[in-house]
């Protein structure tokens, strides 16, 4: 499990990454309700959604991961 550093919610990384279908030309597609992520300082951080991720990006240093 990962933690959304903004709201503190637990995010299931496996579910956020799980392929639920494929795009028309073969990319993996995920369930958007399972959270989002960002590649930050060499690793993936998980968030419950765009609101929290946007807050994080506005001042990454103010959130301890």
């Amino acid at each position: 499990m990962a933690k959304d550093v903004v709201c503190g919610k637990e995010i299931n990384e496996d579910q956020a990454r799980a392929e639920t279908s494929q795009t028309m030309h073969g990319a993996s597609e995920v369930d958007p309700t399972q959270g989002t992520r960002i590649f930050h300082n060499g690793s993936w951080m998980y968030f419950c959604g765009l609101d929290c991720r946007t807050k994080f990006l506005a001042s990454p240093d103010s959130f301890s991961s």
Partner: protein
Amino acid sequence: MDFGYTAEQETFRQDVRAFIAENVNQSLLDEMESGEEGGRGPEYRALVKKVADLGWIGISWPKEYGGQSGSRLDQYIVEEEFMRLGIGVGGAGSGAPAILAAGTEEQKEQFIPGMIRGEVIFALGFTEPQAGADLAGLQCRAVRDGDDFVINGQKMYTSAAHYATHIYMMCRTDPDAPRHRGISIFLIPMDTPGITVRPLWTIQSDPPAPPGTTYGMARTNETFFENVRVPASCMLGEENTGWYVGAMGLNLDRVGASRYLISVRRDEDIVNWVKENDFGGHSPAEDPAVRDKLAELWTEAQVCRLMTMRSMSLVERGGTFTYEGSAEKVWAPEHGVHTTEAISQMLGPYAQLLNGSEEAVEDGLFAHNLMGSFQSGINHGSVQIMRDQMARRGLGMPRG
């Protein structure tokens, strides 16, 4: 100065219209509205194939790659006629100009004929969560590993990702170089392992906007790249020159019918609507304030058209833009907003009724347009960025 079309061009336009009358039917428009397969379902693909068989896609692109080596203005005529129905056909906005200018022989042969036949569709991977207007701040990394590159990072608003065959993306290849000089462009198949697409539903998704709505798309995406390994031959242009290749391509892609038509179709729609309709016996077309506003908007719309014509004239002459492309990109989107907002005041409470509602005007077209018109002043360089460019590149203003 010549503001008219030649007899040949007029005839060609009639041919395109006749083709559209015969081949564009309601079931195609319904398929596009449903958003299935990104609005590019079987009927759409069949249409593209027919248009391509006529030689009407990429008319200005070289013959050896499936184009006609023809006039950009002829291509524009095709784009304009289809765009009036909200159908993007013709070649503009495809990414082809950059590939033709910077691509290797293999890349041109690999992509251009396929793009013409509708078999190759690029998603654009420029924007990132931390790099939108300030695109040169992008962080998606591509690290060389022997003959390959390995990509890690993500792209935002990859609107075509769910139906694209490839992604045309900018990555940072030299993190130590000055920001603009460490970027390269890659052309990557979407089925490369490690690419994940997360749907993002837009404010136009519920209910779906009727066809032709400005930025009426229900869905865009964010796309993640996790140890995506691609051969170095996927790179477009020289390593670390991607910023310049991309900027040039964007400028050329921006020229054409779509940018202008997206912003002026509502002017035609509202004039035609008020001429033929009324609300319980009251006709907005008789209101002096409405009449004055419509005339003002119509005039602004003509300026949109003329700015596009100026860009087309420049392209046909082989000239380069100083500020003309940016000017078009300020004027047209802002005009689209003026019109859409004015319409909401002309229709009053009817302008809030969405697609599917009882009493909705034109399937809620004008209401949905309120949510999309400002969007065209944001993407592909906001109007604020465009004014910066006009002032600095066009007028020689010093940097702040």
